[in-house]
């Protein structure tokens, strides 16, 4: 495959960024998108140029490290797929591809395609947990949890924290990420004692970094785990219930 890539290059947070154009003559349809960048980086390094910095780790779509805007869409054209699991067979020979970092005020660019997603950690630190120390847990089967409830909690818990929801949102809102964690814990009996306090603290923390949700629903469309916006409604309900 022959491809033309316009890739965002930015030396560091303070530097001015710009698109740089690269032609690739030898891409294979069986490559992953990140392997395409690997091959390009090998070529750049051999030419004595600096390779493109991009974040990646497990390359199995589960760690949430990777993620870039591909032709304006977070994680690219394939539904329910993180960048590392996107393969070049989804593109056409001769295609022009624009590659950018997540664009959000809350996620400043560190270098090229790498951004800082630390606010996600802050939201979890604000209350995204169940306060139980190691050693203090009761027997695991003491509290039965109906299968549909456990499955629903699992649907929410699948979030990989990649940040695509924020990157795609015109408002730069982090509702889907926050709602997934809030709902995962609020659905389970173990999460009840801290339910109200948790949602209030997490939402307040979220709002100190991110924009507001106005129901564009673009987050759900690009989420590699298909997290439903239903969880946002659930979070809002819990938040409201705690405020009255």
């Amino acid at each position: 495959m022959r491809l033309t890539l316009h890739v965002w290059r930015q030396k560091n947070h303070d530097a001015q960024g710009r698109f740089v154009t690269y032609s690739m003559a030898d891409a294979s349809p069986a490559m992953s998108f990140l392997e395409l960048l690997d091959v390009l980086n090998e070529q750049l390094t051999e030419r004595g140029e600096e390779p493109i910095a991009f974040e990646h780790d497990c390359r199995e779509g589960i760690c949430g490290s990777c993620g870039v805007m591909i032709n304006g869409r977070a994680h690219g054209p394939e539904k329910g797929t993180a960048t590392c699991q996107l393969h070049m067979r989804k593109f056409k020979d001769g295609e022009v591809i624009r590659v950018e970092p997540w664009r959000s005020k809350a996620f400043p660019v560190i270098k090229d395609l790498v951004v800082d997603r630390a606010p996600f950690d802050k939201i979890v630190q604000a209350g995204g947990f169940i306060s139980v120390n190691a050693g203090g847990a009761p027997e695991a089967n003491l509290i039965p949890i109906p299968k549909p409830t456990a499955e629903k909690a699992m649907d929410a818990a699948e979030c990989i924290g990649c940040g695509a929801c924020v990157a795609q949102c015109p408002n730069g809102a982090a509702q889907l990420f926050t709602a997934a964690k809030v709902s995962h814990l609020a659905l389970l009996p173990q999460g009840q004692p801290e339910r109200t306090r948790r949602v209030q603290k997490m939402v307040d923390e979220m709002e100190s970094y991110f924009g507001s949700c106005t129901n564009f629903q673009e987050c759900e469309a690009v989420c590699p785990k298909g997290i439903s916006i239903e969880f946002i409604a659930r979070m809002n309900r819990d938040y409201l219930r705690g405020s009255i």
Partner: protein
Amino acid sequence: MILDPKIPSGPVEGKWDRHRFEMKLVNPANKRRFDVIVVGSGLAGGSAAATLAELGYQVQCFCYQDSARRAHSIAAQGGINAAKNYQNDGDSIWRLFYDTVKGGDFRSREANVHRLAQVSVNIIDQCVAQGVPFAREYGGMLDNRSFGGAQVSRTFYARGQTGQQLMLGTYQALSRQVAAGKVQMVPRTEMLDLVVIGGRARGIVTRDMVSGEIRSWSADAVVLATGGYSNVFFLSTNATGCNATAIWRAHRRGALFANPCYTQIHPTCIPQHGDYQSKLTLMSESLRNDGRIWVPIKQGDARIATEIPETERDYYLERRYPACGNLVPRDIASRAAKIVCDDGKGVGHGGRGVYLDFSDAIQRLGRPAIEQKYGNLFEMYERITGENPYEVPMRIYPAPHYTMGGLWVDYNLMSTIEGLYVIGEANFSDHGANRLGASALMQGLADGYFVLPYTIGDYLARHMGEERIAADHAGCREVEQEVSERIQRLLSTTGKRTVDSLHRELGHICWEQCGMSRNAHGLQEAIGQIQALREEYWDSVTVPGSGEELNQSLEKAGRVADYFELAELMCRDALHREESCGTHFREEYQTPEGEALRDDKHYSYVAAWEFGGSGGEPVLHKEPLEFDNVPPTQRSYK
């Protein structure tokens, strides 16, 4: 040096309880006076950091990723074992202990394995309390499945994402302690060396991966939870960032490295499809519960799978191992795949693949049942290969996955350097020569939640009131200097080759000569090749950019430099062990049926290697293994 494993006396089932009582305690008010460094935030590191903080210690936890939630434990799919016996099918702590010792082919320490089985039940309680959404039955009780050939159903799971869910449990516990000010989380920071002063681990030297700053951190104890070294093979199922630098640097400072040749090659991975490939993807071995493995009987059969009639297929695992069939342990399944492919019967790219076929299961159980069980795995397979496994059989091939070898630790999980603890995959302790499926998550969490928090207290209590080392101590400065010089050396190389191209070449040598089967000639050849390539590395590599910025080439260059040394030790260990056991299969030592042939008389020991200086020969130390409870037998899965 005499290796003292410090195994408590008495019957195996009472050792841990008595030891817990005999260990010294740190007064609750004094715990906050102690600083503990934890390197790594996966299941072992994250659970240890959170639990130590809950107890009251001050913890600094480091990870190379941007967030503690991303460590590679997250990628584990299948499940976690625990001897709960919820299925009433005859499981017990003793049976899990027995299975693990046997599965490890009698090369692990009985006392450690028994403790692991004992605390396994507490792990499940803990995870459920944290909100881990394990799979459940309609009655609301926890569901279990049989995994990796176990005769009982003791594996707990959360869809195909068990590692992720357990990982989020530890991450949440860790986040809670960060918020409480008990853990200082230091992400995007890589440990590049260990500070040893007066024979004791007193801190680490790190590089800030964004600013490039090199600095020291001092503490009263250091815990390494930095995972395994499968990436020495270049292509493995590990995350691309997983590396052995922390344990290798500790090894160079005096920590013995145990059983480096015990590396697990997982049987069910998606085969390699091109030279540009960056990693191999694992498909959970739970697939073997319903999939049947086969190759065409005829060599070089080019027909597509569905056109090959039943009579022209060789279901080689079912044929060779009628009792266990497709569920034989990992090492046996991997080796059997290599044998049929070496025989020219492999399928797909380069003839390096075998079929994993679900057509029988789909016919028997119906497609919805298969979707329910494996839906997300099937989707993942299709995303990567472009083939639909509901219609055509999957193609799989073994890939490096887990390393049982690691830094030597005693029963307290302390290495041969005082005050340096090693937990999770980074140590060698519990799996012997082969790890059973769903046991890695169990060990990581056992070490972090329930073992280390006790044993480290005993060490700290003995050093109560002693003077602390500051981060600007001359001993720290010296190590910082060495780290900076090494980075400068990498940056000033004037070669033309990329780090990856050299790493790939190293990986190829290891895979061919020290992979699924090994022989003396090949290993000797490999040692020579690795030494030659290592020489070449420092002359021919190019590392663009500077040290004062995010520089991913520089990060990789340092890690690969360490792999060269580790790879050589791995081959030396494989060469010295003149027997076959578990994953270590020496072609010279096999039964007439082609099974691993152990030599208990001469090799029933842990091989712990002492660093012999740069370019020097490593020195072998032996810890004899005794089996008082599970008498060694030849594993038979026929």
